[in-house]
């Protein structure tokens, strides 16, 4: 049972196992352990980003391709749900329509980009995805009649998912089961299922071929694997999962807009999370996301305190300003790539 669930790919480190169990339990019981709007927001973001980052790891860590279009696919999911709910009204049907259309658009776009640019070389792919993603971002901001432009769209979710909804009167452990909590569990279980699905993919024969191509594409080609086809499939698969993550985010936020769904800074976050957590491990996505999202939400406050304490010292307060946390993550990122390319998870596994 457990073996099937993990696809035979266990964390392979006691510390990592403990951390993962902690994260799992914390997320599972988040509405009860950490009541309040902000902690639940953080928990939902962690769930969704684990899927988003893990799907990116399928590309970067397993297939060895750098894409800058992952947020575009994430955004397609977000906008698909958002615009459907905005236009068709709050119903499950609208979610279905938006979801299917978003997936279809993603499949077509990712296959086209893959077939077009993966033929040549990895660097081409990186540049082309960057260009296409920027064009998409600008398009989404420009077509304001349709997308809401820079302001994006706020919309209402189906009744069951609305904050005012109560599943029943009364409370469990002192928490009323609102539409918010139902939405959270929708997000949580969808994310869990998608993560386990990705774990299954990377441990399937398909996943092994991808890794063989990453190690030596020339030899894989010589062995008869059509590397372009495999890499394109990986790209499509990762893009579809990213789209689903975007859809979950839109449902959770009941809002979709360029800054939250498409911006380049989300892409940077994804890169930081996957590299610091550990490329090519999938579990690295979990660790990377948890660390970065927590840092984003709580470390900044700490930095702010330190920064204030250092007022008067030249440069240091600026370096430690809460808005500069990305600087330190950037340094950590570069150091990770050099010194522990398998990230935190790789480090933990070495120690056992």
């Amino acid at each position, binding site marked *: 049972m457990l073996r099937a669930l993990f696809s035979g790919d266990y964390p392979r480190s006691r510390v990592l196992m403990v951390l993962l169990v902690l994260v799992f339990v914390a997320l599972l019981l988040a509405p009860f352990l950490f009541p309040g709007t902000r902690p639940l927001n953080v928990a939902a973001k962690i769930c969704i980003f684990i899927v988003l980052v893990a799907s990116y790891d399928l590309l970067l860590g397993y297939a060895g391709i750098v894409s800058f279009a992952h947020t575009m696919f994430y955004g397609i999911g977000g906008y698909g749900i958002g615009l459907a709910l905005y236009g068709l009204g709050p119903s499950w049907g609208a979610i279905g329509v938006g979801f299917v259309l978003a997936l279809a658009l993603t499949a077509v776009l990712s296959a086209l980009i893959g077939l*077009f640019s993966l033929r040549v070389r990895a*660097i081409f792919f990186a*540049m082309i995805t960057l*260009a296409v993603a920027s*064009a998409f971002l*600008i398009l989404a901001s420009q077509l304001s009649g349709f997308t809401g432009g820079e302001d994006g769209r706020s919309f209402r979710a189906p009744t069951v998912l609305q904050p005012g909804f109560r599943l029943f009167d009364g409370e469990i452990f002192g928490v009323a089961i609102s539409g918010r909590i139902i939405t959270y569990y929708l997000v949580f279980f969808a994310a869990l299922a998608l993560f386990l699905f990705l774990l299954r993919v990377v441990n399937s024969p398909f996943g092994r071929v991808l890794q063989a191509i990453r190690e030596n594409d020339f030899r894989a080609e010589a062995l008869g694997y059509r590397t372009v086809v495999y890499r394109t499939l990986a790209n499509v698969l990762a893009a579809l999962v990213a789209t689903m993550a975007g859809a979950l985010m839109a449902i959770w936020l009941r809002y979709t807009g360029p800054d939250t769904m498409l911006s380049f800074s989300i892409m940077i976050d994804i890169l930081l999370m996957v*590299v610091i957590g550990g490329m090519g491990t999938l579990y690295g996505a979990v660790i990377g996301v948890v660390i970065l999202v927590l840092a984003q939400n709580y470390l900044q406050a700490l930095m702010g305190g330190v920064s204030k304490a250092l007022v008067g010292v030249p440069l240091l307060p600026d*370096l430690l300003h809460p808005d500069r946390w990305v600087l330190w993550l950037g340094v950590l990122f570069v150091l990770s790539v050099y010194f522990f390319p398998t990230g935190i998870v790789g480090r933990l596994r070495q120690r056992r």
Partner: protein
Amino acid sequence: MAIVQRSDTTGRPAWRLPRLAGDRLPLLLVPALVLLALPLIGAFPAWITLTLAGLAMGMMIFIMASGLTLVFGLMDVLNFGHGAFISIGAFLATLVLLPLAAWMQADNIWMNLAAIALAIVVAMAGTGALGLVFERVIVRPVYGQHLKQILVTMGGLIIAEQMIHVLWGPQQIALPLPTGIRGAIVVGEVALERYRLFAVGVGLVVLIGMLLVLNRTRLGLLIRAGVENSEMVQALGYDIRRLFVLVFVAGSALAGLGGVMWGLYREVLVAGMGMEVMVLVFIVIIIGGLGSVWGCFIGALMVALLANYTGFLMPKVALGSNILLMVLILLWRPQGLYGGAKR
């Protein structure tokens, strides 16, 4: 000696094509695009204004992209952090231009230009020096590993942009144009913006200088040979690494120059301005063919002209039109316009 001497004086002029001398077809693309735009735009003055705007922007993009494409051609290194040098160049210029505000506002074009020239020198020296450090610290440890290269240079970009925030503060910085090159020269119905003319001039100087170095000096000869086959250049006894560092530094300095020009064009500086324009830079070097200066030049002009024309005709799809251009060119020539030499 005789033969060498003779051909030195009767050889083709320095601005001949750096490579694939027989392949002139892509050269026709730029005039074709310009002429095609005339009937679509209709009005002659608007067409002139847009063409000048396109040429100016194209020159700036060329300045920023040329170093990047050479760096790639020589060592197969694509620096995603190149955008940081553009931003840093612009911010370094403020160190000169803001204190020299009096020169900038003087009603004397020579004082204006002197201030800008000084800013350019400072920006290029600064970004060149930074390029030296960047090459040593960020790029060198990951030679030959594309994946890590993209990641690490991306990391370098993040750090550099953040450092701009640390050093110059998080707010935007206004960088007004000097009096002498503000506004437009009006000839009949046609308005020619002075700064755009200035940008075209600077771009031409850079282009000619680059072609002279590439075609008339020994260093240029080695660079061209290295872009084609770096291993053979090593086998002939040249240290390609030193050549590469030199080109990397020059490319970074050019990015700094491009940053100053781009900053004056925008008149407002933000740390992410380099990365904004990098999207166009990447499209340009893909269109031109990785490693080709000449392809980069044609690509830059085409991308910028197209952006201005479509910006006028169909403003919402301007960047999309460039993606379309890239797709069309790659369908025609999968390695880019002049990408045949480097595989």
